[in-house]
């Protein structure tokens, strides 16, 4: 009875972390035993292969699979260290001229026959790239940052996903800075969920290591690093599979650390 799950990872706004989430979530699910494929639906500016460090192993892409110039196995790039994960690279930018939603559905159909999880990395925006990707999706994860313009764009995208009948839609809040939230310099988690009205799948703290991992082509979840973002991605993968993992509370995170402890001590009345 268990069916394969095809999940679209989108945001509306660019640069909020869709590709990073797709790569890390793919690795985390693969590590937890699920056969996973990640599909880069951004044919214009593809970078899922960069984040996974698989750029130089691409021979065939989704384009050749559609044109039937090669078999699906030839195009799929297996991850070196995580064999449960494969990547189907995006075709070249000229594909944008002729690609239709039905083509994306064909590709997604082929992938869902073989893998437990098909993660689709959606391009930014709500134009043709998004429309093509949405046609192939069953479920969606909307990722946003606690920032007014990102939330506004996410709201728009959620409305479009509802119109297209994509369900369920869950929310990931990325690049959370607990100290700024505590100072009310950043939108609180409740402010975001208040407007978007979606269940929270996960909270990911701002983490400099993400930049390092991107440049190296090694997602954080790969090496079992204990960095906050890696832990968060791992938890998201577990929740996706039905496990009940408590959400991290940014208010508590902001209070940890030596400086915070000293501040609290100084505020305590000793006399």
């Amino acid at each position, binding site marked *: *009875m268990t069916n394969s799950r095809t999940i679209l990872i989108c945001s509306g706004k660019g640069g909020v972390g869709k590709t990073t989430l797709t790569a890390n979530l793919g690795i985390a699910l693969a590590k937890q035993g699920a056969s996973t494929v990640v599909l880069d639906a951004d044919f214009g500016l593809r970078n899922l292969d960069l984040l996974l460090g698989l750029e130089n192993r691409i021979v065939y892409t989704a384009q050749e699979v559609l044109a039937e110039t090669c078999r699906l196995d030839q195009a799929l790039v297996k991850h070196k260290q995580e064999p449960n994960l494969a990547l189907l690279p995006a075709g070249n930018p000229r594909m944008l001229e002729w690609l239709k939603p039905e083509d994306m559905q064909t590709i997604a159909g082929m992938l869902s026959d073989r893998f437990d999880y098909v993660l689709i990395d959606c391009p930014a925006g709500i134009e043709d790239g998004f429309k093509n990707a949405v046609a192939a999706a069953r*479920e969606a994860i909307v990722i946003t940052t606690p920032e007014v313009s990102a939330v506004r764009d996410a709201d728009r995208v*959620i409305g479009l996903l509802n119109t297209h009948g994509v*369900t*369920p839609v869950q929310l990931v809040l990325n690049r959370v800075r607990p100290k700024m939230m505590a100072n009310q310099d950043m939108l609180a988690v409740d402010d975001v969920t208040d407007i978007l009205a979606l269940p929270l799948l996960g909270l990911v703290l701002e983490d400099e290591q993400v930049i390092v991992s991107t440049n190296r082509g090694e997602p954080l979840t790969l090496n079992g690093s204990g960095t906050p973002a890696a832990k968060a991605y791992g938890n998201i993968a577990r929740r996706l599979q039905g496990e009940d993992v408590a959400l991290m509370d940014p208010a508590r995170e902001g209070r940890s650390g030596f400086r915070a402890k000293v501040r609290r001590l100084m505020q305590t009345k000793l006399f």
Partner: protein
Amino acid sequence: MSADPSREFSHRLSLPPFRSTPWQQWLPAQLSCLEQSSIEVDTGDWHLSCRDLQELLDALKAAGHSVQRITSHCQDTLISAAALGVITQRRVVDCSTTDDASAGSDAGNGALTVHQGTLRSGDHIESRGHLLIVGDVNPGGSASADGDVYIWGRLRGRAHAGLSGNRTARIVALQLRPLQLRIADLVARGPEEQPQPGLAEQACILEGAIAIEPACPPFAPQ
């Protein structure tokens, strides 16, 4: 569109409403009259965690049924179903109109267009008569009407009442925190301060400008 959501199943099991009977007590009686087959389960307004849902699926499997799809309008249930690998369908609560439609095109003065659900950013709804929105208007969303605009929720976007020039039109909301208010040809920015919680307010034209005051009678549209 993905996996044919319009497919109708020959057998559909609909759980009783959440407040009436616990489904565990209701189910055995139903199983005896349902013939073994692929079925669709409509869980209605039940919030089912993964564990609850697994219990339901196991009970159905033990009776020889295979569940092909789960329909619900509860997010939690849909998420649990997806986590267990079952195809889901979101049942949309019946609305009398859909957004952007020629809502109230035949509705002249005095007719009320009702929209259930939140207007998200980029959504726009217009009515030729009065407009009632049961839900919020998010920042970036807008609602307009030739008559009055009533929002049974929070107005955080834009509202325009008296589209065709009716200066007696008003905008009423349970929580008025708009980006922008327009009545007939007048425009006003939303107030800076937060409203008092629990205070429904209305905007109307007083002495040539848009003013905001606590909602007061008469409440029926004029």
